[in-house]
């Protein structure tokens, strides 16, 4: 059982984001860390492989400047190896361009199952999982709260507006997972040491057989026209609770005729 987990390495969300004034895209030159959304995919993959008693987890990531720090975190959790795609030509890639790159890289790993987050914590496009599945020619299930492998199929609880659906899908398949359903394990000291020598296969777009025109700025199919401050909301009254603040709330709600 070969599980590939797509992981993104992003600027720390605790730091305020910044746009590069020349390109109006997110600056990615600070320290990059493993996107928390992907830690759930890594954990689910490790649990699937643990439960089956065989198999391994391969990470695939597209990142600038041959960044590996986020990969080492996931390797320390227990993934076996990583494929990192890094190439200056990839700057400015949109979601589809990213999916094309990931698809080529994943093709090298021949997975039974590909896991991704539903969306990244910095881009939030949420379209890469399906774009990826289409490019790989695979079936897919998005918004998985829970995954099980049984009878040669992947069985998923898929989040819906009304609750959830039980969905079955033949393998190989792409499954995107929601946050919060499993507790990502903390890497142990042993895991961290082992991660240092796990293989990270670094490739550029040439190695993947991709043309520069299909990715990065050239391939993005979009152009930023303007970036401007949005109108902001003014703050109202602020009071300190001295034991009776709840009455202020009730008065406020009364005035709005909500009670």
């Amino acid at each position: 059982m070969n599980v590939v987990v797509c992981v993104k390495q992003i600027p720390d969300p605790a730091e305020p984001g910044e746009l590069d004034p020349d390109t109006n895209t997110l600056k990615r030159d600070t320290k990059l860390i493993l996107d928390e959304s992907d830690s759930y995919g890594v954990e689910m993959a490790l649990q699937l492989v643990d439960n089956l008693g065989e198999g391994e987890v391969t990470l695939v990531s597209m990142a600038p400047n041959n960044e590996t720090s986020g990969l080492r975190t996931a390797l320390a959790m227990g993934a076996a190896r990583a494929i990192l795609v890094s190439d200056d030509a990839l700057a400015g890639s949109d979601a589809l361009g990213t999916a094309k790159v990931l698809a080529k890289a994943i093709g090298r790993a021949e997975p039974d199952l590909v896991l991704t987050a539903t969306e990244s914590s910095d881009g939030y496009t949420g379209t890469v999982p399906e774009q990826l599945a289409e490019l790989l020619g695979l079936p897919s299930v998005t918004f998985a709260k829970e995954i099980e492998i049984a009878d040669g199929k992947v069985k998923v609880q898929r989040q819906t507006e009304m609750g959830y659906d039980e969905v079955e899908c033949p393998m190989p398949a792409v499954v995107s997972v929601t946050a919060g359903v499993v507790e990502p394990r903390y890497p142990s000291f042993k895991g961290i040491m082992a991660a240092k020598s796990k293989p990270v296969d670094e490739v550029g777009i040439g190695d993947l057989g991709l043309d520069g025109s299909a990715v990065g700025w050239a391939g993005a199919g979009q152009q930023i026209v303007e970036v401007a401050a949005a109108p902001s909301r003014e703050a109202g009254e602020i009071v300190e609770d001295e034991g009776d603040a709840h009455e202020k709330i009730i008065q406020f709600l009364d005035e709005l005729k909500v009670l």
Partner: protein
Amino acid sequence: MALSRVWVYAQAADGDVAPITLEILTKARALADTVECWYAGADADAVAGALGAHGATKVYTTGDLGGALQGVPVASAMAAAIEGGDAPDLIMFGTTYDGRDVAGRLSAKLDRTVLTNNVDIDVEGDSVITVEPVFGGTTNVRTTFSGEGPFLALVRPKSFAAEESGGGAAEVVTVDVPDAGSTGGATIIERHVEEREGPQLDEAAVVVAGGRGLGDADKYEMVETLAKQLGAAPGASRAIVDAGWVPYSYQVGQTGKVVKPTVYIAAGISGATQHLVGMKGSANIVAINKDPEAPIFGVSDLGIVGDVHKVMPKLIEALQARG
């Protein structure tokens, strides 16, 4: 300066068209001369009235999908129509579970970018421009599509107000769904509807939301109790959803639901920008937090600097006494 034709991906449940579909249809008819819908389900005839009343003249339907997830079949049918020469200028999708699936699949099939998280769309000459809020909604990015159409855009809920145009029922046209080949196969075996008392989170007039300031999972009960008292929907910040205190369906924020209630009560929520994006459109915001520097106080109409564990129980008790 109008586009010639816009397609809107339509969704419905039990014969009721999703509010986001009606919102997008309303915008679509301001952008284009002709608006048509795409709909997967056995009941296109039942929804054609509402779709038409909001401006659609036609609804292409795949019919019943036999349990298949919508992404592959709807995108395949759209792609087939487009490749057959029937291409619109723009295709709009709601940012929903299935909306993203269809848009993602179609984007890859057509080799066209899809612009996401949009709160507005403008047409300037030949260009279609989308507006996306970033950095917690403090900044708007305007982006245009380059290259040829059809252009694909995902729209956030509550970006537009739904308004009827007075149109008659849309004409229903059944389309064939091409063979999915290796991409087909994901099938719904059973649907589970979560029992929910009270209003739906993204439709409720009042929302009571809790965050990490509540301390631990047990304390969330205060939020549920207050919500019940106010006939409100309970909500949550991403932090407590990720911590497993409440399900993802409770999440308000950039990666959760966008809500615009009359009153939003934020208890123990600091106001991280990704949360603000989901609720700062609320008409009135009440915040309770012990940190006077909490960003939530920058958007609240009534801010209470205090301990939620003191304020909320008193609030609940006082409301109880009122009967």
